[in-house]
């Protein structure tokens, strides 16, 4: 166990008590990166020198009595957040060599809180994917078992934290890209309420759904990071004006709390008849683990109620119309005119466009551009985009109704534990179905917290998610905290980290 394996909260305590310095903490992370990066490929860019410089500054400030919330803590940033002066690729060749002239609001807030940026983390190109395999910079491996995917699209963000390469990280969740990998790598991942965290400077995937959020080792860590990054931003017109209050993590029991289990997301296991939910393809081990987690919540005093979210069965279909539509527009700017990657062998600017985009984008980006261009075309707009928007409204209403009956909803984060490389990459539809349990929260715009909940028979992590009402982050964290006080799943570390 090295100091890079501490939680953020533990590390802050250690720094406060002068048990170690920020420089030592960063050195420890850099050393771990040296040891494991060949196997994991979590990072696209490691900013070692810059991090050490920032760490020295943090130590100086701390010795002067400075009390910034994250002073001296090394953080890894998903390479989809713009970082001033540091190459930002979104995991795609088409942005290779691009150095943004400005920081994303969230990055700026982390810097101002004293966090030390240790590098930019790998991801599925433009966050298109559920396994990390769509990165143009090579796939990231799961620290729990290198033969398995770490989950995507925030693949580097989970692998790095799980393996101790940084103490926490930033990810983005458009359809599950924080929660799914969090569950695959035994981390806490929060998809915030849409608009709770600024999107300014986050390279857009689907603007109406993208939610930046943290990945941490514990709920306590999560609350600390959320406090820094959440809140209104005048640069993002879709950011909410509501300020995040004090998050009080003091609940040890859940008496009086009603938690819903939705038939469509987690069918009761004793049913004989087939239901709509059977196409979720729930894994047996996952069911055992989720049942145990629900029992644990019961033990803590929560009342479990079965509820229905009837329209969530259309969520994946609606999601894969809306998302490609927005993607086809958001990716139009990568045209070879203003970015380093540009193929200029052709005769005119139309050739620059087609050659640059033809070679620069990977298969998944092209697939989504094609689908989105089709669904927005005149004559198809009403049948696809407009209809998908209506489904989105219905799903939102389903949740609103449900939250009148229960405080929270619990569900598995993923229908299956981590899968092997190559298992789904050749079948896009199969890959898309990895998100079947996560996309509903995105379409409804509500917060959802994924928590470590156990391990399958092969020793791979499995997570549960708690979904809350609009702006219900505090409640999610309180319940998550209570759960973590009585479980040890989140304290387990992969052998890779333990052995170095």
């Amino acid at each position, binding site marked *: 166990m090295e100091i890079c394996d501490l939680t953020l909260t533990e590390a802050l305590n250690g720094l406060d008590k002068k048990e170690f310095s920020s420089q030592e903490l960063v050195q420890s992370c850099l050393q771990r990166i040296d040891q494991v990066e060949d196997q994991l490929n979590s990072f696209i860019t490691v900013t070692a020198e810059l991090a050490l410089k920032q760490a020295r500054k943090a130590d100086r400030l701390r010795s002067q009595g400075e009390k910034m919330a994250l002073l001296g803590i090394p953080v890894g940033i998903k390479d989809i*957040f*713009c970082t001033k002066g540091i190459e*930002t690729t*979104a995991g795609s060749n088409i*942005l290779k060599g*691009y150095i*943004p*002239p*400005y920081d*994303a609001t969230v990055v700026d807030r982390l810097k101002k809180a004293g966090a030390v940026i240790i590098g930019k983390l790998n991801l599925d190109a433009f966050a298109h994917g559920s396994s990390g395999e769509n990165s143009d910079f090579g796939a990231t491996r799961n620290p729990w078992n290198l033969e398995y995917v770490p989950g995507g699209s925030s693949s580097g963000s989970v692998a790095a934290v799980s393996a101790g390469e940084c103490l926490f990280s930033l990810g983005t969740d458009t359809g599950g890209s924080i929660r799914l990998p969090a569950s695959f790598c035994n981390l806490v991942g929060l998809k915030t309420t849409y608009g709770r965290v600024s*999107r*300014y*400077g*986050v*390279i*857009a995937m*689907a*603007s*109406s759904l993208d939610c930046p959020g943290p990945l941490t080792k514990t709920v306590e860590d999560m609350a600390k990071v959320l406090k820094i990054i959440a809140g209104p931003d*005048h*640069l*993002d*017109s*879709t950011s909410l004006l509501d300020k995040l209050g004090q998050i009080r993590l003091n609940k040890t029991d859940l008496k009086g709390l009603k938690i819903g289990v939705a038939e469509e997301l987690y069918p009761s296991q004793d049913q004989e008849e087939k239901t709509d939910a059977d196409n979720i393809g729930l894994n047996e081990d996952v069911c055992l683990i989720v049942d145990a987690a629900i029992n644990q919540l019961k033990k803590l005093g929560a009342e479990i109620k079965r509820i229905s979210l009837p329209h969530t069965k259309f969520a994946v279909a609606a999601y894969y119309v809306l998302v490609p*539509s*927005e993607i*086809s*527009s958001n*990716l*139009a*700017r990568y*045209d070879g*005119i*203003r970015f380093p990657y540009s193929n200029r062998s052709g005769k005119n*600017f139309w050739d620059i*466009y087609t050659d640059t985009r033809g070679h620069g984008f990977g298969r998944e980006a092209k697939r989504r551009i094609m689908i989105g*261009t089709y669904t*927005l*075309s*005149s004559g198809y*707009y009403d049948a696809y*985009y407009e209809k998908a928007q209506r489904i989105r409204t219905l799903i939102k209403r389903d949740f609103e109704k449900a939250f009148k009956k229960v405080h929270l909803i619990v569900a598995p984060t993923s229908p299956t534990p981590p899968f092997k490389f190559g298992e789904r990459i050749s079948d896009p539809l199969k890959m898309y179905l990895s998100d079947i349990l996560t996309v509903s929260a995105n379409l409804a715009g509500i917060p959802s917290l994924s928590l470590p909940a156990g391990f399958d028979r092969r020793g791979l992590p499995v997570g549960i998610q708690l979904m809350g009402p609009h702006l219900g982050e505090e409640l999610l964290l309180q319940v998550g905290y209570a759960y973590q006080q009585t479980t040890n799943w989140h304290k387990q570390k992969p052998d890779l980290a333990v052995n170095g």
Partner: protein
Amino acid sequence: MYIPIIGLEIHVQLKTSTKMFCGCDAHIWGEPPNSHVCPVCLGLPGALPVINKKAVSQVIKMGLALNCKINQKTFFERKNYFYPDLPKGYQISQHRQPLCVNGLLPIGDKKISIWDVHLEEDTAKSIHIKTEASNQKQATKKEGYTLIDFNKSGVPLMEIVSAPDIRSAEEAVEYCKLIRQIVRFLEISDADIEKGQMRFEVNVSLQKLKTKNKKSKTKEKLPDYRVEIKNLNSFRFVQKAIEYEIKRQKEVLKKGGKLTWETRGFDEKREITVSQREKEQAKDYRYFPEPDLPPIEISNEEINQLKKEIPELPHQAYNRLIQTMGLNKVQAKILSREKSVLSYFDRLIQTDLEPKKAANTIINHPELISRFSPYKLVEYLKREQSGQITDEVELEKLVKKIIAENPKPVRDYLAGKTEVLHFLLGQVMKETKGKADAKIARTLLKTNLVH
């Protein structure tokens, strides 16, 4: 017999201190290339737009001035297309729910319907640099490169779309001129055409007229084609392009040819239109609601407030000048052309000056307007009426003339015979039939009688 069916799309850059969706200074004229840019208007990854509320208010004002209905629930949309001057690959514009719809603008006895007035962002500017061909063989090919200046990118742009209610090139120009006057009266744009602040697109088609029914000329339904002429940047080009297009289309139809949906450009040197794109290649802009911007809601209070801020408009002033001031059409037209002239006139008649006299003075003596405030002008006119000429400029002209016509007395004066001044003053009085202000004339003589 054919009737031209003409519609216009007019783009006007709005006068705001910052751009449409970012904080960049919108005063871009004459500024060094790419000096007024930021991540937002450069379309850099991750940058997000923020609505300039001033521009929204300005477009609503225009809508109100054109008697439009204001859509109180509206939103921006993305218009998707590729071009190097469009950094995001889409233009933030409006399509399904424009800010203002169904307006009406009277021109003379006629009313032109306004389909909509909406708000969007301007594109960047491409500058094509031609270079010498590297060798003889390539000399026939186009050589060169293109530079892009993003200063213009994101400047607020208002688009006014008329119904195809216009029937001649002259009427089109009259309409364009009135639109320019209105935006200037509203002070929402300088609409300086030279600076590209006002640009035009016209669509022209010809409709065959049936004359079988003697009682009334019944029209056939609108033509099934439309020719759009883009990027016209002067009133003259609007006129020339329409005239040429009417002539061209007539010739095609007379020969039994068929006209199709088409986009044409205007060759400014040859003053002809040139085909650019046919309908088969027509663009599908794949409009969809801009997810980066929340929908806009406009309250009744806001609309009422903006209504209050709208001044008398040029066509309204024109009618008032004729109907209540008794001016003739020419006078009314000249006085209602510019807000400053109109307000000068209105202040002038608040004194006891009679409107016709005031109008004539302004029209015939523009030099006096620039010299006197309305109040001083009235004083001046009174003195002039009483006979005395007190205007220094006028008297000085005369003094110079007398000096030039009397070389000998002038020489004598300069030689020291100061009494000659009386003679010269006498000449001035004689010329003005004794109406010159002697004191002023004497001073002017002295100052002008120098070596």
